[in-house]
């Protein structure tokens, strides 16, 4: 049986064969390891003489006032992970109703290593999207599971989503409603998979509804989104938000992008940003902007009542072509948190932070490309500094090889001293056929935990990944320009 036939047998139930089909199938496996912490206690009386905050075997310990037991963390065991992910995005159409198609975007994820550490592997079968779509030139309706994307984030929905396009496609009005999935997940909020710590969990799935208006003109494009989530068990809001985005081309080469969200539950502005970008005819681009970040929590957790502090930031970026083969880029951001109203004299914390990243790339002929970049960040609770470099060689029209390496220094978990890490490896990408691509790679990670106690360890491990991607279809899925377009002399 041919691969095409095999996929058909696997994917298309008897009696559901359409006139056309397209399948993007990916199979990938990774191997990784992490080493966390292992909490333990020791009797206060057992602390080493002369060093009252260290255990006899040298671990720094924390002794709450009046407690008989002190807590300390020793390096945890090396935990291996080997996630295996099969991902299929399939479309079927031609069922006798013009414009009707079935779309499935699903995956099967499992961790072959003992312990199953890799996140997101439960449940094993995950339906990202699965719906029937009816699309005509001015109307699209989806029925089933779909994913909504907007400034409000990514939300899964089991229900109906529709869009009407007006004014020759320059305006689109959409609406959706149904039962929501958990935030950024493929399972409902009632699933145990999104409650690993046995927290309070809703009994019923939330109802989600919303709508948006998007418009497009050569100089101004924008979108306004409204969305609400309601707990059907008690008819109370879980979230109600509105967001707006606009992209305005002020003059040729200058554009202004801005957007904001508003939380109707708490009556506060959420995250917002505005950026002015300038594109020079030479290809250089610079941007400056301001933004404000406020974390958002729905009302079925108590976290919103803890008044998370937003921060405000200014940022800028610069991308410069330095000749036909060399380009450089840099971006930086400085941010300040709003007053937290929770300051105590016992602990000092940073109120502001910064981060930057800069790099350059050199296209050395048709075969080699070299890139190097450095990055650093420092702020309340967060710091990192490092660099990485890569050499990519297109050794054959269908074969790419990449060598990469880098170094990173960042605080340890719980921010007790630093961790220094070297990594290096190589990747290969081999296009075996127009529709078949294989990838693979190996990376060595050498990690040193720079602590002043016995938890200072150095360990290395190997990470690997293998993958294959197959694009199959019934004839209309082309990856290259068709002959008629290639015959058009200046149209590309």
């Amino acid at each position, binding site marked *: 049986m041919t691969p095409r036939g095999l996929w058909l047998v696997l994917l298309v139930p008897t009696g559901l064969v359409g006139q056309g089909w397209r399948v993007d199938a990916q199979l990938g496996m*990774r191997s990784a390891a992490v080493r*966390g912490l292992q*909490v333990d206690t020791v009797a206060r009386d057992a602390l080493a003489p002369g060093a009252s905050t260290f255990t006899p075997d040298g671990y720094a310990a924390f002794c709450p006032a009046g407690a008989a037991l002190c807590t300390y963390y020793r390096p945890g065991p090396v935990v291996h992970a080997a996630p295996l*992910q099969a991902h299929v995005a399939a479309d079927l*159409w031609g069922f006798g109703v013009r414009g009707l198609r079935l779309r499935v*975007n699903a995956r099967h994820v499992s961790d072959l290593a003992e312990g199953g550490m890799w996140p*997101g592997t439960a449940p094993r079968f995950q339906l990202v999207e699965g719906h029937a779509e009816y699309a005509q030139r001015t109307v699209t309706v989806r029925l089933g599971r779909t994913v909504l*994307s907007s400034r409000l*984030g990514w939300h899964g929905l089991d229900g109906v989503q529709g869009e009407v396009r007006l004014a020759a*496609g320059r305006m689109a009005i959409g609406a959706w409603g149904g039962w929501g999935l*958990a935030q950024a*997940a*493929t399972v409902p909020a009632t699933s145990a998979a999104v409650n690993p*710590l046995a*927290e*309070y969990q809703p009994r019923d799935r939330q109802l989600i509804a919303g709508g948006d208006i998007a418009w497009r003109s*050569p100089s101004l*494009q924008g*979108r306004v989104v409204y969305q609400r989530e309601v707990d059907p068990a008690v008819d*109370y809001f*879980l979230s109600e938000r509105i967001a707006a985005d606009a*992209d305005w*081309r002020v003059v040729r080469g200058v*554009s202004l*992008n801005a*957007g904001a969200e508003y939380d109707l539950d*708490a009556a506060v502005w959420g995250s917002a940003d505005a950026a002015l970008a300038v594109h020079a005819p030479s290809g250089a681009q610079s941007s400056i902007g301001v933004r404000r970040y406020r974390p958002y929590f729905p*009302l079925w957790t108590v976290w*919103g*009542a*803890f*008044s*998370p502090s937003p921060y405000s930031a200014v940022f800028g970026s610069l*991308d410069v072509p330095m000749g036909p083969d060399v380009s450089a*880029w840099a971006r930086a951001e400085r941010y300040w948190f709003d007053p937290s109203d*929770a*300051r105590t*004299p016992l*602990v000092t*914390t940073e109120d502001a932070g910064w981060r930057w990243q800069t790099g350059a790339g050199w296209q050395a002929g048709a075969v080699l490309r070299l890139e190097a970049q450095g990055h650093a*960040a420092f702020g309340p*609770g*967060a*710091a990192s500094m490092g660099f*990485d470099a890569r050499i990519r060689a297109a050794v054959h029209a269908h074969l790419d090889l990449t060598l990469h390496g880098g170094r990173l220094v960042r605080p340890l978990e719980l*921010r*007790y001293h630093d961790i220094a890490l070297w*990594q290096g*490896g190589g*990747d290969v990408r081999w296009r075996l056929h127009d529709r078949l691509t294989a990838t693979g790679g190996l*990376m060595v*990670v050498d990690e040193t935990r720079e602590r002043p106690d016995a938890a200072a360890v150095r360990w290395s491990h190997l990470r690997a990944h293998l993958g294959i991607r197959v694009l199959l279809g019934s004839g209309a899925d082309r990856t290259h*320009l*068709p002959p*008629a*377009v290639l015959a*058009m002399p*200046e*149209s*590309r």
Partner: protein
Amino acid sequence: MRRLLLVVLVLVAGTAVRALVRPATFDHVAHAGLFPTCTSCHGGITRPDASLWPTASQCAACHNGTVAERVTWTPPTARPASNLRFTHETHRAAAGDTIACADCHTRAGEPTEIRWASARQCVSCHGFAEAHLAIPATACATCHVRLADAALTESQIAEFSEPPSHERSDFGLAHADQVDQACSTCHAQEFCTTCHVNAAAIPAIAELGSNPRSTELAANVSVPPGHADPGFVTDHGRSGSLSCATCHTQSSCTDCHRNNAPPDHTRSFTDWRHGPSADAATLRCATCHVRNDCLDCHRPGPGSGAYHPADYLARHPAAAYGRETSCSDCHNPAGFCASCHQMTGLTSRGGGVLRGGYHEGQPAFLVGHGPSARRSLESCVSCHTETDCLTCHSSVRGRGFNPHGADFNAERLRRRNPEMCIVCHGVAIPGA
């Protein structure tokens, strides 16, 4: 003499040429007396199981070299390939005796000169005043099946005539509004894909059905006039419309923009800040990108490895704590963050045990954790449960430390969802 010779040569040559180009046809006139009914020889007209043609033995009954000269006749083994819905049986069943063979197979006034039925006759009987190719497209299906369902040969398809509607100079670029089921009479998906790279995403094309031989017809496209504008090269990204994807794929963009990025698709844009633009200009993004392009990187849960750099597992603590981007847009904080932290010993399971440690390297961190908690609450909840915090911050089960900030609107939130208030305050919600 020369003139006479020339005339003779012309006559001979003309006769020879006529004999060569004229197909060998059956002389119905000469046989009219022998076979008074058409079905005597063409039994398949009334019987689906019979041949449409007479057998060689039927001819040989007379053409045996004695009664009449021998003839060579091999009847076709199959009915002629066609894209017509027409069959003699169904036509006969529908029309009954109101229509006779001669109505279609003879010219008016020449009842014995048998010929193939012409489209003109079909059109005339079916009540259309226009010429065959000029009748309304909605009527094609009256007589024709879809090309995808027809067993026409390459040469038959290649000989399709072009209808007058296709002769407009802008038809190649402006036929989108006219696409309907009638197109399927002459075209199939494969023909469309010779121009439309996004054919699979266009429902009207998908509905045409498949016939690889449909590419025997050559598509006649021209460069859109807007492409000749002086500013097109620098401005085409801005003015792009959904129709760009008709002819162009992502590769047709990257072929030109590999080293010289589009005005707004710089390294910083693609790596860092394309989100706001994508939110604002979804219709413009759709010019080149399809839904799965976004889902390749931005699918919730375990990623494809395409979004974060190779060493991100090591880099993510600082990146997450710094909140340069919102992790929870793609990762469920509990199902993704907490589940992994739990396996690596970084979570608290609640129950009032806070597992005190050297947060920030400061032994008094617990006492003064307020500022850090408010600034990085998303990081806190990737390890701690609500129960951890309510150990102190609940007015019912805890020590009553107020966690609310200055801008906390208790009354509004209570109206919105008092269940959140009950978690800490019980049923005695202040102000209720």
